[in-house]
């Protein structure tokens, strides 16, 4: 009985394999083409924003904060970053405080950018590849080159596809994802204050 059903099983399996193969052959070029075009657009976006960031980083320090905040307002997925940074305490942020919190994050990140800018102020950004984690989640890899001859710096950009364009959700420098790093620190502040998100807001306002 088992022997008589075996050939049928094989033929059904072969039929399924054949169908899958034909489907793969027919659909792969289309999928590859769509992914390639999405990646090309994402790469172009990072190339353009990266140039602007390098320009701000090597510009005058007096204007750096306002220029960088302007870039953030246009290109950072600030709501997603803000909520992400609260980790498991995200539900504890009162709705009435959301916009103030997002604004404080912009100020906080701009402050960090000014501190680190001299070390990352390269003169050229080279896009080295990209990969879609999902349709809305794309990672673009780049190298920042320095006029001083310093070894190039690998920087990865995690993009969130929103509407017709992209927003930057996270940046990886020296192997460190900055939003993940920020989340660890923010959660630590809230945790050490018995889950009080107000303590984080106080820190971000400069009163921590």
């Amino acid at each position, binding site marked *: 009985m088992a022997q008589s059903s075996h050939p049928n099983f094989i033929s059904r399996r072969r039929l399924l394999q054949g169908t899958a193969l034909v489907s793969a052959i027919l659909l792969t070029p289309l999928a590859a083409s769509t992914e390639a075009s999405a990646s090309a657009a994402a790469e172009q976006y990072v190339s353009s924003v990266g140039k602007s960031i390098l320009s701000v980083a090597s510009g005058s320090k007096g204007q750096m904060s306002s220029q960088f905040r302007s870039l953030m307002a246009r290109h950072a997925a600030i709501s997603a970053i803000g909520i*992400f940074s609260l980790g498991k305490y995200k539900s504890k942020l009162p709705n009435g405080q959301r916009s103030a919190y997002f604004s404080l994050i912009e100020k906080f990140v701009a402050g960090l950018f000014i501190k680190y800018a001299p070390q990352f102020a390269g003169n050229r950004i080279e896009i080295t590849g990209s*990969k879609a984690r999902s349709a809305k989640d794309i990672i673009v*890899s780049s190298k920042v080159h320095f006029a001083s001859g310093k*070894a190039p710096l690998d920087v990865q950009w995690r993009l969130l596809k929103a509407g017709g364009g992209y927003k930057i959700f996270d940046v990886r420098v*020296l*192997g*460190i994802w900055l939003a993940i*790093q920020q989340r*660890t*620190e923010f959660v630590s502040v809230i945790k050490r204050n018995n889950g009080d998100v107000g303590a984080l807001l106080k820190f971000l306002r400069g009163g921590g």
Partner: protein
Amino acid sequence: MGAGLIDTAGIHKNAIASTTTFVSRLLAALCIAVLVTSVVAPQPAYAEDDRRIIILPAGSDEVDAGDDYEESGLRDPFEGVNRVMFAVNDAVDQVVLRPVALVYRTVLPRPLRKGLANFLANASTPVTLANDILQGDMKRAETTVVRFFLNSVAGFGGLHDVAGEAGWERHTEDFGQTLAVYGVPSGPYIVAPLLGPATPRHLVGRAVDILANPWTWILADVSLIESLSPTMAETISARDEAIEALDATREGSPDYYVTIKSLYHQNRESEINNGAIIEDDLPDIPDVR
């Protein structure tokens, strides 16, 4: 006969003394070596196309995703003691290491400091090469060998990184990374006196690297200060390069202990993966409207 007995005892005594000296040197070298990885900012990681698969045992404390990601970083069951040790190490860094690095920066011009850093990096080739091979990564082993010969010959003994300029980028490997690739879990986060942030796996790896490094044995018979000179030079050189980054980190951090722990963990994971991004480990982007 009696003389023979006396000689034998003398030989034993010398052997014990020698071993004790060596062990004390090893420990001292270990202390300083790990201090480099703990106090100094993360080292560059180099992205590569190849993605290494790391099989972690069930219940591993290293990888997770989703909303609880921050809870599943490096397990820290000894946080209370670790924070005390961290404060001590930080004080030593601020009182001794950072000022020494500043003096070093003031005394030596940048090209000389860069040359010394290149020389020390070139001298660490045996450790990197051994671990490249142990991890079965012959492509990176080839890069390590080419870099060593190019920099030793055309780069004046390693003072100039001509290989890097020609596109052979530097990478580092250590036995702690090799253990991780073999699937050995890191163990909990620990901050040991002077050793700084580490894990048991990292510390064991450091000890093995020191024992396997030919320089340890070449310098075994010289005075303690001479045998530790390369390690001290490496520490000061690395601390010099990290002055601005660490100052900025300290100023901007709401909790310096947590910041350094997270930086250490992320950087170490990146090193183990040779800079490659493990996409499945990334937390999802929240859907915010």
